[in-house]
C-alpha cells in the first residue's frame, strides 16, 4: 500500500483565493513541493468566512486540482488562519527553582513554560501559538536551554498569538466537513515567514509582511525568535474598493485596473495620462486619470506600511530589523511597492521568495503562495520532530519485540 505519511498539505483559505500546496517529505528530511491547487475564493471577507457553503465549494475545487497535480490523496492539511481578531503579544512566565541543589531540571522548564502560557485572555479567545523566545536564569538574558544550569529563578519570554475561538473553529469545522483532517492551525504570518526567511535572517532580525487580499499580516523576528506579530484587516480588497469609489467604476473593473495599471508610487511619467475603459465591443465607455489611480493606491499602501511602522515603533523593534523587510502576498506584486516600503521603513526591502524548499518553481516564485508553502514547511518541521521522537520509541519497541520473540 502506498504510504502517504510523507505527504504534507498546506491549506490557506484566503480572501481572494483558496490555495492548497502539497509537499513531499524525502527520506533525508528534505521538502519537495509536488502539487498546487487554487481556486477563486468567494465566501471570505477580510480573512474570515462569511459564506461557508461557497467556501466549501471553492475548497473542493482547489483540493481537486492539487490532488490531480500531485497525484496523491490528501487526507489531512495544515490550516492557515488569519483575521482582524488575531493578536500577538509577549508574556513572561516565572518559576522559582526549588530543588536543593538549585539545578534546573526539565520539569522546571516545563513549569515555567506553563506559567508563561497562563495568561488573561478574553473568555471567547483561544491561544493559537505560544512560541518560546528566551529563558532568563536569575536575570541572565539569552539562555536558550537552561536544563542543567544552576539558578534560583527561571523565567521565560513567550510570544502568544491568540484569536477568537468561534471564528477559528468555523474554518476548522469547514475543512472537517470536506472529510479532511486538520493537523494543526498556523497563523498565516508565521507560515509566510517560515517560507521566506532563512535562519540567518531570523537571527539578524527581519520583518515579514504578507500583503493579502483581505488582511495584512506581519511578523518580526529577531535573535532567531518571533518578537512581534500582528494583523491589519486591510488588504488588496481595500485597494480595489478605494479605486472603485475614487474612480467611480464597478468593483470588478477596479480590480482589473489595479492589476493592469496599478502602482505603489505616483510616477512622473504617467502624470496627465488617461486610460480609456472600453466595453467588449471596443467602444470607449470612460476615461480615467492614470495619476489618480496610482495616487489612490499609493495612499492606501503607504498607510498600511505606516500603521505597521507605528506598531513596531510602539514595540521598540524598528532598530532590530537588520536583515530588513520582506514582502510577500499578492500585494507585493504591485509595481514600485518595494520602493514605497523603503521610503516608509527607511531600510532594505526585498520582495520575498520561498527559500529552503525545492520543487515546482512556478509555485515557489509566486509571492501569493508564500503562506501556503510555509504551512507545508511548518508541517515538515513538526513531523520531523515527531519522527525524532517516534524513532526512539520504535527502537525501544524493537528491543521489546525481540524479547518477546525469544
Amino acid at each position, binding site marked *: 500500500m502506498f504510504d502517504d505519511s510523507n505527504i504534507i498539505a498546506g491549506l490557506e483559505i484566503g480572501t481572494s483565493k483558496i490555495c492548497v500546496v502539497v509537499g513531499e517529505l524525502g527520506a533525508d528530511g528534505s521538502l519537495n513541493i509536488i502539487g498546487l491547487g487554487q481556486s477563486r475564493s468567494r465566501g471570505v471577507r*477580510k480573512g474570515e468566512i462569511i459564506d461557508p457553503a461557497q467556501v466549501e465549494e471553492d475548497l473542493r475545487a482547489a483540493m481537486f486540482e492539487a490532488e490531480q497535480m500531485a497525484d496523491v490523496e490528501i487526507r489531512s492539511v495544515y490550516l492557515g488562519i488569519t483575521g482582524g481578531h488575531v493578536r500577538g503579544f509577549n508574556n513572561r512566565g516565572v518559576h522559582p527553582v526549588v530543588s536543593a541543589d538549585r539545578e534546573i531540571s526539565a520539569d522546571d522548564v516545563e513549569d515555567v513554560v506553563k506559567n508563561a502560557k497562563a495568561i488573561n485572555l478574553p473568555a471567547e479567545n483561544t491561544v493559537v501559538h505560544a512560541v518560546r523566545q528566551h529563558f532568563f536564569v536569575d536575570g541572565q538574558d539569552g539562555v536558550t536551554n537552561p536544563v542543567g544550569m544552576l539558578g534560583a529563578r527561571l523565567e521565560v519570554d513567550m510570544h502568544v498569538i491568540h484569536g477568537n475561538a468561534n471564528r477559528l473553529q468555523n474554518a476548522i469545522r469547514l475543512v472537517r466537513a470536506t472529510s479532511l483532517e486538520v493537523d494543526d492551525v498556523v497563523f498565516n504570518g508565521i507560515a509566510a515567514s517560515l517560507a521566506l526567511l532563512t535562519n540567518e535572517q531570523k537571527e539578524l532580525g527581519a520583518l515579514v509582511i504578507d500583503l493579502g487580499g483581505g488582511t495584512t499580516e506581519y511578523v518580526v523576528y529577531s535573535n532567531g525568535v518571533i518578537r512581534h506579530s500582528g494583523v491589519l484587516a486591510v488588504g488588496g480588497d*481595500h485597494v480595489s474598493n478605494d479605486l472603485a469609489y475614487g474612480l467611480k467604476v464597478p*468593483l470588478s473593473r477596479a480590480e482589473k485596473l489595479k492589476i493592469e495599471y496599478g502602482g505603489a508610487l505616483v510616477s512622473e511619467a504617467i502624470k496627465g495620462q488617461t486610460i480609456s475603459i472600453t466595453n467588449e465591443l471596443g467602444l470607449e465607455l470612460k476615461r480615467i486619470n492614470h495619476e489618480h489611480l496610482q*495616487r489612490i493606491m499609493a495612499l492606501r499602501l503607504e498607510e498600511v506600511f505606516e500603521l505597521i511602522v507605528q506598531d513596531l515603533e510602539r514595540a521598540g523593534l524598528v*532598530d532590530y530589523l537588520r536583515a530588513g523587510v520582506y514582502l510577500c502576498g499578492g500585494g507585493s506584486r504591485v509595481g514600485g511597492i518595494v520602493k514605497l516600503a523603503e521610503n516608509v521603513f527607511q531600510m532594505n526591502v526585498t520582495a520575498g521568495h520561498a527559500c529552503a524548499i525545492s520543487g515546482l518553481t512556478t509555485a515557489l516564485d509566486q509571492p501569493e503562495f508564500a503562506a501556503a508553502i510555509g504551512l507545508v514547511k511548518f508541517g515538515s518541521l513538526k513531523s520531523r520532530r515527531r519522527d525524532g521522537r517516534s524513532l526512539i520509541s520504535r527502537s525501544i519497541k524493537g528491543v521489546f519485540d525481540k524479547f518477546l520473540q525469544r
Partner: protein
Amino acid sequence: MNEQPEIPAFAPPEPPPAPLVRIIGVGNAGIAVLSALDRTEFAAAEFAAINTDAVSLASAPATIKIHLENKLLRGLGSGGDPDRGRALAEEQFSTLKSACEGANVVFILAGLGGGAGSGISPVLAKAAREAGALVLAFVTLPFECEGNRREAQARQTLEYLKSAADGVICLPNQRIFKLIDENTSLLETFRVTGGFLIEGVRGVWHLLMRPGLIQVHFGDLCTLLRDRHAENAFAFVEAQGAGRAREVVENILSHPLLDEGRVLAESDAVLVSLTAGKDLSMAEINRVIDQVKRQCTHAQIIMGAAIDPAMKEKLCVTVIAAKQETVPATSRIQTETRTAGPVSSTREVVVARTPRMKKGGAKPIQTQLPLTIVSKGRFDKSEPTKHNGEDLDVPTFLRRGVPLN
C-alpha cells in the same frame, strides 16, 4: 477663563540673582491661560501677549501686546492655519525678538492645534533664543474630538517647538478628559486644563525664583526636557500639617496627571523639587524622594529643595517626569511632514471649529457639514476595521482629504 479682574501690571525691583522672567501667551488659548495667572504671585514677571486676533488681544492683561495683523482676514485670526500664523510671525520676526529682549527666561504659553498658537510659538521660541533668553514652552495638545487634522498640526508643531525651545512641557488635553465628570461645562473644562498648565508654570516658577538649598538650575530642567519626550507629565501638590510628607507622597501617587503614578514607572527622568517653610526636615525630603524613587526604578532623578519662609507650614512638591522616545527627532519630523503634506484645504472647512478658537468674538464662519455619506462599498456590511478611531474601510484618500481634480 478670563473673567479674572485685571490688575495693573507693575514690576518691583528684583534682587539681582533672580532672573527676569517674561511670560508670553500666544494665541487665544495662551492668552486665556495668561489671564488666569495670579498676578500677585507672578509679580516679578512681565506679561506679554501675541495673537493674530485683535479682540482677544485687547482683553489680555499684558504689558506688551503684539498684534500680528493679517490683511487677508482683517485681524480676525489666522483661520486655524498654522502656516499662515508662521508666515506672519516670520514676517514680524524682529518685533518678536525685541519683545523678548532683556529677559533671562521666557515662558511661552500656547494651545497647539489651531493657527496662532501652532504657527507663532515655534518662531517666537526661536526669536527669544536669539534674543539671548532661555525658552521654556508650556503647551496643550488638543482633545481627540477636535479631529485628526488639529491633532496632526499640534504634533508637528510640537516637533518644531522642541527643536526651537530649550524645553517643552506638554499637556495632552485628552488626559484631562478622563478626570472631569460628565456634567462639567465646557467653560469649566477649559478652566481645568488651563489650571493644570498654570500649575506647571507655578512649579517651574518656584524652582527659579526661590533660593534653593539643594539648587535645581534652569539648565537641569532643560536637560531633562530636551530631546526626550513626546509629552511630559507634571504634577504640583501641596500639603500642610504634621503628616505633610506622607500626604504629599500620597497625592503624587494618586495624581491624575501622573496616571496614578504609572507615568512615573515609565519615565526615565524625573525632577522632584520641594519647597517648604523653615521647618523642612531632612527626613521629609528623604521620605518624598525615596517614595518617588521606588516608583521609578529606571529613571534618573534630579532633586531640589528650597526654603521659603512665607510658606510657613506648607510643603509643596513639583514633579516633572519625562519619557524617553526611541525615534530620533529628525526622522520623526520627516515622516510627519510627509503625512501632513497632502492634507490640503478641502477638509479644512469640514473640521469643526472648536469653542476654544471661537472665543474672542471672531466673526463666526459658516461651517459646512460633511454631507457626502461615504459608502464603504464591499465592506458595507462587514465588521469595520477600526484603528485609533479611524475607519480603515473608508478610502485613505478621503480620510486624508487628498483632492482628485
